[in-house]
């Protein structure tokens, strides 16, 4: 998969990003990306899960679907840019695009990533309704290479084997950051509905869940930000909030 940029913009502590703001951000992104790029804008309406391991190999602290105790999302929205790998000097153009995007959006933080898609039951069909964008922080005793290797070659196959409810699963390994991006990786899980997400995460955070227990082997903290509005290349909203 190509190089990708994710830019987190807008202050999530004030108000959810409006449809108009999301569209404006998407158009701004379109104006700075090279030809052949694909741009997606996602609202991050709330934090749904915060999982933290205070001690390696200890039990996690889990806050799930509890608005009163969960912090606001990292930002009000996220722009994802998929770079065209066939571009000449694509690495330089990715750097330049990330910087331009960061400035144009007055973003909180922007990262460039190596993106890998592990599951896709959607193909070119309709973008799934519910987007869960997780910021993932590695265990401090692992370097980023070891962390990603474990994640992609052990955890991902395990998670896929246990009847997941997500229909698309992509991991983004951080290559460079602008601003204060607080993790080592972004994980995007896309679900058909909020109910499916809730079912999935309730299972994963239950005691003795195999995939849930595996998380502590490589992750120190993860935060799921969710949203139900996505603006994709066709400039149409996928919005199933009712």
């Amino acid at each position, binding site marked *: 998969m190509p190089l990708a940029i994710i830019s987190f913009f807008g202050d999530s502590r004030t108000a959810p990003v409006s449809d108009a703001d999301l569209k404006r951000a998407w158009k701004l992104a379109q104006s700075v990306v090279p030809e052949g790029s694909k741009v997606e804008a996602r609202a991050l309406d709330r934090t749904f899960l915060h999982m933290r391991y205070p001690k390696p190999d200890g039990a996690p602290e889990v806050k799930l679907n509890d608005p009163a105790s969960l912090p606001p999302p990292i930002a009000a929205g996220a722009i994802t840019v998929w770079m065209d790998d066939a571009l000449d*000097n694509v690495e330089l153009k990715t750097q330049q695009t990330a910087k331009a995007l960061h400035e144009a959006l007055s973003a909180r933080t922007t990262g460039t990533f190596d993106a890998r898609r592990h599951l896709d039951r959607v193909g070119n069909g309709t973008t799934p309704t519910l987007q869960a964008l997780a910021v993932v922080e590695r265990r401090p005793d692992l370097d980023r290479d070891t962390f990603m290797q474990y994640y992609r070659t052990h955890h991902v196959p395990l998670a896929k084997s246990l009847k997941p409810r997500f229909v698309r699963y992509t991991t983004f390994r951080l290559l460079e950051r602008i601003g204060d991006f607080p993790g080592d990786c972004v994980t995007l899980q896309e679900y058909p509905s909020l109910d499916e997400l809730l079912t999935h995460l309730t299972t994963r955070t239950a005691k003795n869940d195999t995939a849930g227990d595996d998380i502590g082997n490589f992750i120190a903290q993860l935060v799921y930000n969710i949203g139900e509005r996505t603006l994709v290349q066709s400039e149409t909203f996928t919005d199933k909030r009712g």
Partner: protein
Amino acid sequence: MPLTILSFFPSGSAQVLTEAALREAAQTARALAPAKARVEVRSLDRTFVQMRFPEGGGAPEVVIDGERLAPLFAPAVMTITFDDNIEDAYLRVSQTADALHGKLGARGTGIFDGRLHLDEIREGATRGVLALAMNVRRSDMDRDDYFHYYLGRHVPMAIRLTPPLVIRYRTFRPLHTLGDFRADSVTFQEFESEATLMAFFQARVADGDAARDDAAEFIQSLVYYVGERAVSA
């Protein structure tokens, strides 16, 4: 550019590998790799250039040929370039790297983000001379900063300076390594002939060369190995 495996083999050997041994290794890799992966093995015949950049700046210490050059890291390098569109590409690459490392008795094997910056060969058969550099970053840079500078600044500048001598230019950023592999990146520069290789390096090591001076901004040391034989499978 897709995920790439580089495997330096065999371990603990200073011997020159025969054509038959290179072909056998290529067949071994072919049997392990997914169908659409591209397999290529290159001999590494000698250490060619070493450069070390002093921390406080100033001219680098350059060793070209001669007894002060380090021994070869390994007599050959296997390159497997993957088709990124296969399902769960990263897992398949990782499984292939593990198996390949064992089967080849390799000294070091890595999974890399391979980037093709210049290609005058296109789909033509591999030919000519490979100069393979193992680079170590400056100690005051982390790897992200190092690649930011390398790919964002140095490569575009170097490419402006290199044609027509370099006919293909690739860089490899390690994502995961096995065995004894300590470099922060690997560079492949390919040349039509020994003569163009020599002309290139004479320019690069000369005082005042822009690319050499720029290398000091992010590289602490580098070693070039040269090989002239290639086998594809």
